[in-house]
């Protein structure tokens, strides 16, 4: 059994009558790449702030490597690097100056500071930008610098709040593959929140979907996909018979028509059965997608959120 790194028991945060995080029970193990998915206002940021001892839980507790974060926030903060939603770097300082300041805050000895900073800048591919003011950086560069900044203390855990928000696909890939390297090669435990499902599916070891302060689904990406699957068929023509035939397949929960599309929601993987129906009938299928059902699960909660 791997070491428990983050543990929460009934962690709850209320703002007045409003419950932002509801009785959260999380266990994250050493070396895991854990992703927290959730629509706006789900309570992801609030959870992170509580884990860092920056916001007091209303009830419940959280531990980082066994240290109670409300009683001993400094012990938690020594071990956790945090990359906030907004990087919070100083635009009027250079990349290096920003990191020097953080190194000072963490009491990194002077002798090794310079080397550590340059190594980190190299790791996040900003070495040539060391002496450029951060105000000139693109969002993606700022985000990478923020990751370097969080790594200055040589943390065992990295918590990142939507590190790819507002960053283009290429920049997002760069950030996520950097995180993957940190996770695989250096064994850093990663807890990250995101909206980007397809990335999360690829990189996360475990995923939790959060909605209105509660975790509504949690597991490995493959197990979540097994739970429910969705097939989208693009057809030249659609007749109602096809809809009802598809609806008759065992395990199908719902069949929906959307223009030229048929969307089949099922409790298991029913690709084979669907193809049997179609090939028997000879429908003209112009496109098929086996949608990552996670997205649909997510979309479901997203919709509930809006409703």
């Amino acid at each position, binding site marked *: 059994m791997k070491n428990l790194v983050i543990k929460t028991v009934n962690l709850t945060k209320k703002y007045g009558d409003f419950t932002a995080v509801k009785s959260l029970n999380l266990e994250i193990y050493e070396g895991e790449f854990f992703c927290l998915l959730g629509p706006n206002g789900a309570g992801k940021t609030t959870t992170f702030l509580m884990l860092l001892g920056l916001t007091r839980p209303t009830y419940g507790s959280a531990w980082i490597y066994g240290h109670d974060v409300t009683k001993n926030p400094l012990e938690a903060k020594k071990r956790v690097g945090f990359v906030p939603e*907004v990087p919070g*770097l100083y635009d009027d300082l250079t990349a290096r100056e920003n990191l020097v300041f*953080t190194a000072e805050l963490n009491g990194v000895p002077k002798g090794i500071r310079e080397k550590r900073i340059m190594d980190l800048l190299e790791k996040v591919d900003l070495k040539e930008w060391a002496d450029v003011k951060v105000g000139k950086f693109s969002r993606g560069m700022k985000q990478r610098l923020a990751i370097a900044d969080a790594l200055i203390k040589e943390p065992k855990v990295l918590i990142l709040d939507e590190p790819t928000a507002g960053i283009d696909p290429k920049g997002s890939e760069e950030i996520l593959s950097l995180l993957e390297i940190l996770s695989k090669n250096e064994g850093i435990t990663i807890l990250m929140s995101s909206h980007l499902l397809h990335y999360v599916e690829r990189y996360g070891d475990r995923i939790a979907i959060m909605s209105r302060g509660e975790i509504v689904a949690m597991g490995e990406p493959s197990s979540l996909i097994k739970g429910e699957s969705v097939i989208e068929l693009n057809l030249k023509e659609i007749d109602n018979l096809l809809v009802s035939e598809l609806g008759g397949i065992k395990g199908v929960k719902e069949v929906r028509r959307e223009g030229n599309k048929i969307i089949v929601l099922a409790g298991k993987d029913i690709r084979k059965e669907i193809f049997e129906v179609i090939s028997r009938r000879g429908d003209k299928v112009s496109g098929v997608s086996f949608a990552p059902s996670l997205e649909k699960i997510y979309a479901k909660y997203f919709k509930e959120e809006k409703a």
Partner: protein
Amino acid sequence: MRATPIIRKEVADHLSSKRFPLLVALILLSGLATSYLGVQSILQGPMRETEQTLAFLRLLTGGGGSPTLSFAYFIGLFGPIVGIALSFDSINREMASGSMLKILSNPIYRDSVILGKIIAGLLIILLITFSSTGIVVGFNMLVAGFGPTIEGAFRIIYFAITSFLYISLWFSIGLLFSVLFRRTTTSALASIALWVFLSIFFYLIADVIAAEISGIRYYFPSPPITAIIAYYELRSAISRISPLTLYTEVANVLLNPEIRTTGLFYVYAPNLPSPQPLNLDMSMALAWPSFSALIAGFIIVLTFSILLFLRAEIRPSWA
């Protein structure tokens, strides 16, 4: 100490900011200009040594020429701007930009953060008050051709300490507003409004209130003397709520040994020996109530801002 990196960064930020040279120029130029005028008007003809000492000190308060054109007057007026400029955005700017959250995600206590900012700000104020007083006094010595006595030098040092305290009080007011208001424009406006209110309008208000309470609503026929005295005493008591009044009183008492009271009356009878200038201890005793009121104000406002900051809800971004 955990606050050291914060202090270092804040001091560097202040010194390299665009505000800093402006603030120093504001204080220094007004100080030099007024003392030049003062030297011209006071130092006419030869003087005895005791007269020289008094005259030299008076250069700082403009006792000879116009009292409104003096170094002490300009610190009284612009000192608050210096204090406010150093603090009005120090907390809310970092809250809004998210850098506060980032700082606090590192192993440092919240009180170290605000203490670091306070210490850095006070160091800068110390630097500004003592260097500008030093430069102005040196300039006066150069132009006048003589300097203060030892006692006079001490009076000037205490005056500089008072200026430091006065500007620090306004620094703490700016800091309080920077914790209280999320937007830097709001905290700037609130600080400036309070400065205008306490430094300019407050005298009018004190006057109106005192007149109302003491029942003086007419000047002819002359009201009874007791009512007039009550009115003046009330007015000066009320106006002591303004830091400017307190500062002016302390500065005047320290720099004018001939001032024997901060109130209306000094009891004197013809058969007593003629009044001599006060020695330093006596002047300090006279200035003490106002001086300690400045200290009290400073500590109270500062404590409030620290407590509010410690309780403030930290969010990713305030804006």
